[in-house]
């Protein structure tokens, strides 16, 4: 055991992460990039808070957006309440108000949801999520109805240390600050008695009871703390977009955070960070490129669940182990060899999907139009040419992927057995 409070490797990793987060907007100055980075930072906090339940306590929630959304609404109302008399310092502290709101929501709603674990918890969380989402439409006074509640984050006459939070890049700085603090706090929590007992309750609730722990209490406390961090993320989103709609607390948002966390990897603390960044990029970048992005999103999720159920973090962890054992070099050529046919397969599939989508959903020209633009290319979709080409590429990619992928699998299994053989 190391008695050092912060081991050097960990300090380096955290410092590096923070430095990268600060450096990114200096490298990518475009408004689009800064907005993207802001959304990433918010989602990182949200996904990490979700994994306090899913990965750490074993609670599958379908209603986590409730805490996020309520945090966002309360923050927005507080911002509007402060109004002109406020100062940028108060605005900077507002995510904490969102956090407290999320926590309070956790105290009230969590009392009901955490009575039970497993499927019952999942179902009750779904029910509560729907309930709160329905309330959002029933009480337009508070939730702002269809239009939502908007506000202005630039208030007060003077700046705070030169910050007014008006420019997007200043808002990004505020998000990085809060995201970093929240991430450190959430990591610290995993290293406490409650954090460890949450793992114990996840693995074996019965035994946890027999070593003296009230599993219901452990789940309840974890949910309250998770609500706190989800609320902070909600507060940040309110300040960032200066508008909060009912969308923030509905089932779709709950679903997205589940996907992010799962794709990133629930078994590792940093998994949700990766998932949040990746899915945000996919949403915004791919969403900007094609109208069929939800389809890609779904296919990607399906692929991950089937091929890498431990998420991206588990893939990284395996590579790390191989590297430590000096075996990564043996696998790298195989990875590269598999990447090429996979790209061919992907190109073919994307072509088919885009053409199909253009034909059925009508990319800007109305459904059923056959002469249209697909990926910047003019195409006659009633002619067999483009279809045959895309189908051919996909078939070729599939054949190559199967052939080379098979050889990679053999190499992979051999390497894994060497790895485990070395260990035993």
């Amino acid at each position: 055991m190391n008695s050092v409070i912060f081991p050097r490797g960990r300090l380096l990793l955290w410092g590096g992460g923070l430095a990268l987060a600060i450096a990114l907007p200096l490298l990518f100055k475009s408004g689009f990039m800064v907005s993207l980075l802001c959304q990433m930072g918010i989602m990182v906090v949200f996904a990490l808070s979700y994994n306090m339940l899913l990965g750490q306590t074993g609670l599958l929630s379908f209603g986590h957006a409730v805490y996020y959304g309520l945090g966002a609404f309360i923050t927005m109302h507080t911002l509007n309440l402060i109004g002109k008399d406020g100062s940028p310092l108060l605005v900077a502290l507002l995510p904490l108000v969102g956090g407290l709101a999320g926590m309070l929501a956790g105290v009230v709603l969590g009392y009901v949801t955490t009575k039970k674990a497993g499927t019952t918890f999942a179902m009750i969380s779904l029910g509560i999520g729907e309930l709160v989402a329905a309330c959002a439409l029933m009480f337009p006074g508070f939730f702002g109805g269809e239009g939502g509640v908007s506000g202005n984050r630039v208030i007060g006459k003077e700046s705070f240390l030169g910050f007014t939070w008006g420019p997007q890049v200043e808002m990004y700085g505020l998000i990085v600050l809060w995201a970093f603090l929240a991430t450190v706090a959430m990591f610290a929590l995993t290293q406490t008695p409650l954090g460890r007992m949450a793992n114990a309750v996840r693995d074996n609730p019965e035994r946890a009871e027999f070593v003296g722990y009230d599993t219901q209490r452990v789940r309840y406390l974890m949910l309250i703390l998770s609500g706190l961090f989800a609320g902070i993320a909600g507060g940040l989103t309110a300040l960032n977009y200066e508008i909060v709609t009912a969308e923030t607390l509905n089932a779709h948002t709950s679903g997205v955070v589940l996907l992010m966390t799962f794709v990133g990897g629930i078994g590792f603390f940093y998994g949700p960070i990766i998932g949040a960044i990746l899915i945000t990029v996919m949403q915004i970048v791919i969403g900007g490129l094609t109208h069929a992005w939800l389809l890609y999103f779904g296919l990607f999720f399906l692929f991950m669940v089937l091929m890498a159920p431990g998420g991206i973090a588990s893939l990284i962890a395996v590579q790390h182990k191989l590297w430590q054992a000096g075996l990564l070099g043996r696998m790298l050529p195989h990875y590269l060899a598999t990447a090429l046919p996979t790209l061919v397969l992907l190109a073919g599939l994307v072509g088919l999907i885009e053409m199909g989508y253009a034909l059925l959903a009508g990319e800007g020209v109305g459904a059923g139009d056959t002469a249209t633009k697909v990926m910047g290319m003019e195409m006659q979709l009633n002619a067999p040419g483009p279809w045959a080409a895309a189908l051919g590429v996909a078939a070729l990619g599939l054949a190559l992927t199967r052939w080379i992928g098979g050889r990679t699998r053999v190499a992979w299994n051999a390497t894994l057995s060497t790895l485990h053989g070395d260990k035993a």
Partner: protein
Amino acid sequence: MNSPAIRVSGLKKNFGASEIIRGVDLDIQRGERHAIIGPNGAGKSTLFHLISARLPVTAGAIELKGENVVGLKPFEIARRGLSRSFQITNIFHNLSVFENLRCAVLWSLGYRYSFWQRLSGLKDARQRAEAVMEEIGLSRRRDTPAGILSYAEQRALEIGITIASGADVILLDEPTAGMSNTETEEAVAMIRRVTEGKTLVMVEHDMGVVFGLADRISVLVYGQIIATDAPAAIRCNAAVQEAYLGTSLHSGIAS
């Protein structure tokens, strides 16, 4: 302090219409090693489940060190100093051996639901977990996830988790089930070592283990205790021999 460690009186348990425990009276004295034996389906494990509150009692009373514990939850009974193991290994599979044991000591050391203390800073929890790990002979498996330990190692960890909290009343449910002879011998020596000065109640099928460890033996047949006595007396008890149809117990004792 004169009250027995465990006093069970008129205990009944029904599952639907079938009566599994049909009026059990049993006193376990403080500091004794008590074995409960009986044919399969006699209700031995059910009796343990009732005492440890894993199952709700249908009727009757259970006192732990003079206090009524019927209706309490498992964690409340654990906090009153009763700890139990399970027939089917019941550990924290994804946590390391060390983490399993540390989880088992946290409550007894008063750390409760703390989220403001660093685990690695809790010296007493670490030392206690390490001491137990040493006692059960798993020190070299410290960082191995419990789920990939060998069967005998998992059984040892099962007992380790049970004794880690320092509870003074220990219930072991078939601690040597499924072990080889050598493993059983080691397990018996280990159980003897770690339950020194404590009250031990165990369910066991291996008569060698029972007669080697127990100060007193109770025989449970069809939900009732037909005899409670010292091992020598149990050996000669006619009712007990009849219950075992003169076979398994007899041959077990003879060997």
